[in-house]
């Protein structure tokens, strides 16, 4: 029996100990009319060999592509050591570290992670992680409203924040009566303009969300935005790419006082793209907000002999104690992802992280230069970028992407669905993983496709639902 070690003799001895005639007798408290007949709709069992063959064939059929999408999930080199270490059974199969004395490995690792994230973002404290960057932003919005003691339930969110993040925040706060006001962006430069915000300060708001870089890859005027928010009695919430912080100013240093809360997705720190997850969300904040922080926190303490050790702390904020009044319903952190991120950051170090950020920046600049040299490709925005940029194409974006795919290239993310005014625009990203040859291959294929520009072959209809 797969994963069940019982021999017939064991079963007989155990039933005798219980005083039950058979296994069915163990379910005698379940009303007979509720008992189901069986699981005929579930396919029969496969051996490990058979299921391996099945999934390997599916994976190979899916294939691999030369990827130029970023849009919130980024391809980076991951040192081999990261997942060999994180995959150790002692991390992989451990439970949440409630029994601290038996979980010092996980607990110290999270404490190290918290320290790294606090330093990276320039804030005082970090929690032990949330589900992903989008849910971390939702929790930050709720936290800002709580910190304001409910005096206002309005939060300002620039349109340059990742559209999926905005959708997740909307779904998470809707039922608590929180209003999200969307701020416009400069269609020429591609970032939020402080000058355009005064109208939004007419009514009080609990927080301003500040993305850096923003969804278009463009750098926001973060100092001015942070100061503006705080001058208007709002908390400043940064949403950042952690790799960019190897190069860019830490949110704790933005403006006069630094932001109050910083969140983001930790995926670029050692987590594969993985078709969408698991990733992890990080959250750091000022010390003064610690009791409003959702999720687990690891703190240092001492044992009976005065030896340093680590425990989960401030648990009374959490759902298992505070129940309906908890800071959040969140229970899990993305523990294993955090383990990988801590190992990844330790392997890169300050110089390594900076050189990854610089190389990704340089690659995207180089790709942008080559693409915009082609006829029919122009930059969508003039603002400075980190490692991602929007370009406008003369041909329909969906057709271009389909043609690139046929050449084994995933050419970028179409912006039109979320930004109708950018229906002709494509968001592209070339991290440090891309070589000069990769950039050339993309450029040549795009040149060929744009040069072709004829209608699709007669009779061909793109599948209606596939866009």
């Amino acid at each position: 029996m797969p994963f069940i070690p019982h021999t017939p003799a064991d079963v007989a001895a155990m039933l005798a100990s219980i005083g039950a005639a058979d296994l069915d007798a163990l379910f005698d408290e379940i009303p007979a009319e509720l008992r189901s007949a069986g699981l005929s709709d579930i396919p029969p069992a496969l051996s490990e060999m058979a299921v391996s063959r099945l999934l390997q064939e599916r994976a190979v059929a899916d294939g691999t592509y030369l990827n130029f999408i970023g849009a919130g999930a980024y391809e980076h080199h991951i040192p081999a050591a990261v997942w060999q270490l994180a995959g150790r059974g002692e991390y992989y199969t451990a439970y949440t570290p409630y029994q601290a004395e038996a979980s010092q490995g996980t607990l110290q690792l999270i404490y190290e992670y918290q320290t790294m994230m606090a330093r990276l973002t320039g804030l005082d404290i970090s929690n032990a992680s949330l589900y992903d960057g989008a849910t971390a932003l939702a929790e930050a919005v709720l936290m800002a409203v709580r910190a304001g003691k409910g005096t206002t339930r309005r939060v300002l969110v620039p349109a340059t924040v990742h559209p999926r993040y905005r959708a997740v925040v909307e779904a998470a706060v809707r039922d608590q009566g929180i209003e999200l006001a969307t701020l416009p962006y400069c269609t020429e430069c591609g970032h939020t303009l402080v000058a355009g915000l005064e109208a939004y300060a007419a009514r009080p708001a609990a927080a301003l969300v500040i993305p850096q870089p923003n969804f278009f890859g463009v750098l926001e005027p973060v100092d001015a935005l942070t100061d503006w928010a705080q001058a208007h009695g709002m908390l400043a919430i940064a949403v950042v790419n952690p790799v960019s912080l190897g190069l860019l100013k830490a949110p704790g240093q933005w403006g006069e006082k630094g932001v109050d809360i910083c969140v983001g997705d930790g995926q670029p720190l050692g987590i594969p793209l993985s078709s969408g997850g698991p990733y992890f969300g990080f959250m750091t904040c000022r010390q003064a907000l610690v009791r409003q922080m959702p999720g687990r926190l690891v703190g240092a303490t001492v044992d009976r002999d005065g030896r340093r050790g680590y425990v989960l702390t401030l648990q009374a904020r959490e759902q298992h104690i505070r129940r309906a009044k908890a800071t959040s319903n969140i229970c899990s952190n993305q523990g294993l992802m955090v383990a990988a991120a801590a190992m990844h950051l330790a392997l890169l170090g300050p110089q390594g992280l900076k050189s990854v950020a610089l190389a990704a920046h340089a690659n995207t600049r180089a790709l942008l230069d080559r693409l915009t040299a082609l006829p029919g490709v122009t930059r969508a925005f003039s603002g400075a970028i980190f490692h991602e940029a929007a370009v406008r194409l003369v041909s329909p974006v969906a057709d271009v992407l389909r043609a690139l795919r046929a050449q084994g290239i995933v050419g970028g993310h179409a912006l039109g669905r979320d930004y109708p005014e950018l229906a002709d625009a494509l968001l592209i990203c070339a991290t440090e993983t891309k070589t000069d040859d990769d950039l050339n291959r993309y450029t040549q294929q795009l040149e060929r496709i744009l040069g072709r520009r004829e209608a699709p072959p007669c009779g061909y209809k793109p599948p209606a639902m596939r866009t």
Partner: protein
Amino acid sequence: MLIFEHSRPGRRAASQSPASPAAADDIPAELLRAEPPALPEVSEMDVVRHYTRLSQKNFSIDTQFYPLGSCTMKYNPRVCHSLAMLPQFLARHPLADPDTGQGFLRTLHELQEMLRALTGMAAVSLAPMAGAHGEFAGVAMIRAYHAARGDHGRNQIIVPDAAHGTNPASASKCGFTVREVPTDRRGNIDLDALRTAVGPQTAGLMLTNPSTLGVFEPSIAAIQEIMHAAGGLSYYDGANLNAILGRVRPGDMGFDVIHVNLHKTFSTPHGGGGPGAGPVGVSERLRPFLPIPYVVEERGYFRWAAEADCPQSIGRLSAFGGNMGVLLRAYVYARMLGGEGMRRVADYATLNANYLAAELARAGFDLAQPERRASHEFIVTLKRLKDATGVSAMDFAKRLLDYGFHAPTTYFPMLVPECLLIEPTETESKETLDAFVAAMAKVQEEARTDPDLVKAAPHTLPVRRLDDVRAARELDLAWPA
């Protein structure tokens, strides 16, 4: 030692990042970082040794038995990990066109369908990334359902007092108030109290069955009748699904919405606190409100459903759809079990729990529900031992660590004083259970003969009893730079 204490200025794992950094002179200087972040400066071997040594300070399923009630700590098959880590699955960008991931999407669709069949629900979404996330989605759907009918007065969710803390926390996160109903002496919901509690303000009921007290709620039909008569919906918390897999389906029990903890019932690893996954299943009337995305099939082509497909959806729960790697692991596990194997899960989890309960009772322990059949878990109360010796459930739990067993869940559910909630799961052998009974009996003996030994436990782990009061009073959440 911390990784920061290994750090030496100028040391690095040089092969892990680009060698010659380019310039970034097109970025305005005021946006650049003045000082590099104070990350550790260490060699690759420093990292490997440090994190290998740290791992050795952990208990884990691979090294220890975890009789941890309500957590279903079963064996995590290795192949689930290696297949979820196939390079093509790992390399795929979440926003890449579905053309590039038909095998992946087909796999998730099959998982959706298996979960649907297994739970008896009308439709399933894999979007929630944890049990509590599934609860949020489920309660949000209940809210959306009433709102869509213009029934705006329903602002209350009923939760039994024995429920997990996430239930009331999830209900409040959706803007509901929470009304608790008591549990009677046998561990069942007090039906009279439930009748009194429901009314035009009732949006729904959240129920775990078997309950957190480890017993099956036999009055489930009556409970559903009361809820339906009141116009409320019912939510099944799948925390204890392992107990009834293949025996009873939540859909057949009349529930409108459920979540399944894949990191419990489907054996995906706990990873020291996550990631998990908490897919939700719904009855027909809640289908329009399912969270997106979920996988749809159209004539053999698979893609994610999005906003345009389901305008009444409660929306997105994550940026990129969910914890895909966890879903793949659960899929592999489900395929290896097959229908018959799934039924055996409940059979042998229940056999192990009832055997352990019988043997512990023989060893002199007090069961909280001695007259009831255990489900996949049961409760021992140490109240008598504490009154006699001063040894608490916490002390007892810490001493078990010295004997190489992870402690059972302590002080939950809060209704039973000095309790240990014990769940052995189906993957443990009789020998392991017998060794655990022997350790429990030994600690009980020690509590009577040398209570201070137990109160001072653990004695053999990397640290002795940690001062969590000091941790909370003198917060130290990051290593000083």
